[in-house]
């Protein structure tokens, strides 16, 4: 799980000037002060959100 936040994909997304980019930046920022439990929760939430973004795109196309 801890690999998600350090991945190149996340770093790329964090540069976006979009709601998704802001979201990823917020998660990275919160992860800096998070303990291990909070970190797991953050990563799961981020994974869920990115999957939803991706899933809706898939449905639409």
């Amino acid at each position: 799980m801890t690999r998600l936040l350090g991945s190149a994909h996340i770093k790329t997304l964090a540069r976006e000037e979009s709601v998704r980019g802001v979201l990823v930046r917020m998660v990275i920022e919160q992860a800096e002060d998070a303990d291990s439990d909070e970190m797991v929760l953050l990563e799961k939430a981020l994974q869920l959100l990115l999957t939803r973004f991706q899933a809706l795109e898939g449905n639409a196309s």
Partner: protein
Amino acid sequence: MILRSVELESFGKFRGQTVEFRRGVNLVIGPNEAGKSTLAEAVPAVLFGTDRLERFKPWGRNSCSAALIFEGQGRRVQVKRNLITDEVELLEKDDLYHTLSQFSGKVPLRGRSASCREYLALLDSLLGVADESLFKATYFFGHHPQEWSGEELSQKLRTLVSGSAETDYAEILDDLLDEHFQLTRSNPWGRDKQRDREYEELCQQLAQQDGTEEAVPIFVELDASADIEAQIEKLVGEFENDRQEHEKGLRYIEQVRQQKVESSESTVSTEAKVLPEDKKISTSDVARPDDVARPDDAPPPDDVSLSEQLLAAGLPKNPPRELPELLSGAANIRQELAAMQQPFSFLNNREKKIPKVPWGALIGISVALAAGAAIAWLQNFYFLQLLLGAGVCSALLLGWGGWLHVSRNKALAECRKERSRLDQKKLEVQKRQAELSERCEALGLPSSAIDLVRLQKMVDVHRDLLARWWKQDNAPEEDIESPHVESVGSHNTAGDYDNTASDHDAITSDHDAIDSDEEDSADEKRSINVEETDQELLELESLLAEFEAGLKEKESRLQELRLQLNDLSTARRSKGGNPGTVQHQRKYELEERIAVLRKAVNLLAGAVDEFGRSHLVQLNNETSKLFRKITNGRYPAIKLDENMAPSIQVDERRWMPVEQLSRGTVDALYLTLRIALAKVRDDGRTLPLMLDDPFVHLDQKRLAATLNLLDLASADGQLILFSHNLDLGKRAARERWHVVPLDGDAVNTTSDEGGDHAGQLHLL
């Protein structure tokens, strides 16, 4: 960067053809089915891959490949892709055809391999975009629905700012909330739902089974533990600071005590030394007042300068004249702050003592009475009497509860009022303290309370030295009495010392008189110093005792919080950590899922808010500017709310939602929003804007204004328009746009011999 050319080796209906573009506006014109959209979609397909290969693969052939060439900033980037195998070659060269970077590998759409990451990172660094959806959302203007409603437009805009071509963040938010409320009725963002959901039902089942489980959502406790952790963190910081201050204070008091002992010893030795000489002391032996006051370690005045003496005495090198006034102010502030601790502590105790209303017990008793009455009705046993009795009892109990509630609220309100008054007073004192600290800092003096107390002590001991310093400065002498000295009484003789000191050299002829005067004043001063030190010690000790009490209170609160946190985590482990049955396991899974859903909702809502704060104002301004131009000033501004619903300003005070506007106006608005969005997102690596027939509903006048606007927007970059409108062709000829004509059968490209002007000549 601009898109210099698209090489279509085998793509859709194109075979072995090259379409060239140039900076500024490019018009790709042709009838329906001429391949305009295919050409437009070749760009993202080559850059990122596609999942609609069948659309682009030429019929009857087993190859499908194309290449894009971008140019700009002295570099040329070529991206070539075989769409069947997803093999990609990327080559970056400089003006002298030196290779700067290159990549070759398999990169399918949404691939996650190492080579995909490498390629996307390279693409991101070269073109500023590494995501197909973002590229489409930013630079692509495709066909859109024929009928726009306000909500559709808002939805489209939300999609665009979401960061992908097809995803509306509001839809995701709704989905997450739906899923959340399918699992639990508990609502952390508002009122709970009425009907129990899976989680509550499961909790009830477990409670019935073993009677230990409570239908209390575990995440409530999680939130509480987060709060407690935050409180502990804050308190630990405060406690550590206070502890350090306390230690400093203890050290300082110890130092003052030592000085007092040394001072009393030196007094005894001086008296012993003076008395046997029977008052026959020569002028050179007469102790000047400053010598009397000088500590043992201070150097004699003859050997060192006054400022060095000041330094040696622990005073500032250049003490300002405001020093006594500042120290007096600081002492007052300290006293006021210390005096305020007691009312606060009293108020806390008072608040704790206000009784809570036992609503649970009262309602429980009322329900029990009602149940008793119901049973009596069923059994037909004195029903009316029992009902009346139960009603009266319930009413009395509830009335008593209400009275308690009102009294409690009243008492709490009084406490709040008192607290706010005290807070206000404390704030004022703290403000004065901050001002004083600023003044101290501006004068190069220490500003902490402990340092100021220390300085006060030094000033008291060395005030003669200070008087000499200020006198030497040729300024009017000031009273340097400390507040402690004032409190001792008006018999202080600092002024006398100064007079004695200043006249000392002039009165050598009258030795005896002066000797006598100076000895008297020195003795008097010693006794005053001892008194001052005693008083100061007492004051400091009382201050320190109060401080210590506060410290102990904080320590006990910290311990209490740690215990609470420990209890919570123990409870959490005992509930969640022991799966036990399948139901326990399911409950644990539900709790975890609910926690993740809540976090996701909070994150997404936070991101939307943050995006609104950071980008919406800029987007509104940019769009308003462009829309004003397109509508020739008819609509001066537009405004997007937090749901991306646009309103248009129709006059100075009136804003109109887009539903009430014509389709042409809404189309124009959409277009301006897209251009504004691309500008807001632009980070200097501008890619071409690609517009696929976006002007269907614009009238001639608005079309002209829009085209002017696009012309302006493309001044620093590149715009590629795809259209079947022949009128645009005429305008292209007038405006000297670059034209790429397509017909239904073959492609008339500019090829490589036409250069930048070939397209115009072809159309003409």
